């Protein structure tokens, strides 16, 4: 998995989000942006087909406790389906990007 951030509020993830280490890296990156004052985070998950439960817990905390406005765009329809099954599309403002 590779992560980079563009601008003040955009985080771009390429590769599969699989391990705890992947989740920690994403958390650290987003935490840095939030600490710098970003209240709108745009998470672009380009091709991961899944997401770890640790990430889901973290993003829920971000949305519900820290009141961060989260947008997620996903490139893989399987991840979109997973988030749909988990009833998280609305909470995380998830959109599927067209290829």
């Amino acid at each position, binding site marked *: 998995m590779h992560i980079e951030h563009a601008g003040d509020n955009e985080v771009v993830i390429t590769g599969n989000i699989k391990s705890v280490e992947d989740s920690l890296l994403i958390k650290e990156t987003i935490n840095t942006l939030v600490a710098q004052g970003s209240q709108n985070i745009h998470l672009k998950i380009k091709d991961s087909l899944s997401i770890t439960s*640790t990430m889901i817990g973290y993003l829920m905390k971000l949305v519900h406790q820290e009141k961060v406005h989260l947008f997620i765009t996903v490139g893989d329809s399987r991840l979109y389906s997973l988030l749909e099954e988990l009833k998280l599309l609305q909470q995380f403002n998830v959109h599927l990007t067209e290829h």
Partner: protein
Amino acid sequence: MRVAGTVSGRRPGIRKQGALMPSRTDSNNVTSSDVAPANLVLLLVEDDLLSRDMLLIKLKHIFTHVEVAADGAKGLQLFRDQAPDIILSDQIMPCLSGLDMFRKIRAIDQNIPLILMTSFMDNDILLEAINLGVNRFIPKPFNHEVLVRVLTELKLEVSGKRYMEQCRLQEITLLRYRDQYNAMQQEAARRKERHVARHDLRNKVIYGADGIRWGITVTHTPRDILCGDGYTIRNLPDGRQLVFMVDAMGSGLSASLSALLATSFCNYLVDHATVSLKTLITGFQEYLNGILMEDEVLSCGFFLVDLMSRKLEMAVCGLPPLLVRTLDGLVRRVPGANPPLHGCSGSIEITTLSLSDIADVMVMTDGITDASLSESSTYRDRLENDFQASPTLAALLRRFRLHTVRGEQDDLTLLQLQRLDLPAAWNWRQEFEETGQRTGTIHGLLEALAGEIDLKREERSELEILLNEALTNDLAQGRLKAPGMLSASLWQGALSPLLTLELTDIWPGLDQFRNASEGSVLDNIRHHCDCAYIQDPGSRLLLLKTIVGGADYAH
């Protein structure tokens, strides 16, 4: 002969013959005095009295224990009796020379340091001494400084080796202790998990409306000792059943604790409160808010099974969609209505599923759906197809294990609510009056079945074993008494047909099954079929088995 300062008998830390191991078995109790150089024993072998006395004066300053022998034969005896740490010997002696004695000692102990004193150091002696592994040579007459230096060096060397060996033994003992401790803790944790996860209806038939029989099977496979998954299946006093399944998201002990606490609290609510799904969920949420960490979420499902009213009330939060199959084999996915629970979850939506035309319902944690098929796909991609082909949980699990990557699986929990009275495409039944008729009964059934569907040879053999086990073995043990009845039916709602075998015993022989539902008899029967249920009351044993037939069920 014994010099001053020598103690009698074996001392702590003394070497056993032929081994480097210290005599103490409990190396945890090794003290610094055990490994102190002063505790080493020197064996001096010297036939010349004057030399011996002069040597003893020097040796007393280096060793507190010195054993003395006047020739090689006595030296060998003392080596055997006293197990010294170092041997200092003259070469030329009566009875047995120094090298002759060393040769015999080396046959017993390859490691004990040997020092040879000699005034004649010809090549033959030197070569043999080297071949025997003599560690040092001291020329005669003695140079006292050389003598003291050689002995001190060897003493330190032996002490160092002894100390290192004891440290190693201590470490091994400590590791063994830790392993035992960890194994004990793991077993205790497993017992606790099994204790909290209840299954009131294991192997039991449940009655629904119009006398239709149902059953609940579950498989629970933790990845680690403590598991992030949990479940409980409770039979309520009003005849309904409550099923709870949880998958604490995340990993490790934290997830395990959350799953265990949630399951345990759910059991508590069932045992101490009136069960309506709404009150149960409200109480559960209040409890959960107090135990979940701020970034922790819990996927779970509450399922209130009311077979008399033919409905399933459920509150599903973040679990994968349920798989539901109708009596005519139509499969559909029923997604949950709620996201995973967390500390700030709002109200939870309860939905109802009619069971009127339902054959079975499969509920699972994401250990099933998220298992890797390959680098770029998960079992989610083929789950629905495999479920269509699998009429039982066991059959689905076989397909799952066949296709997923071993060793990378998460905790797995899979539960099936299944109708046992299904619209049969084929029926067969036969009464048997005497125990002698059972073989004919079994063969009659297998022939009839083979005429109906394409039975694999192995399947036929397995069915024969299963039926023999169920009839013969249990007849012998007095569990099933003749006369009785064997009936069979085939349901073809799933792609692989489901064979249901039903043993009816008009005597109360099967009663003993009920009391031995965890026992070896039923375990053995279960081994040859997908699942087994006991009807209570009624003395009936139901065995369900997926028939793969001519088709290769791997595809």
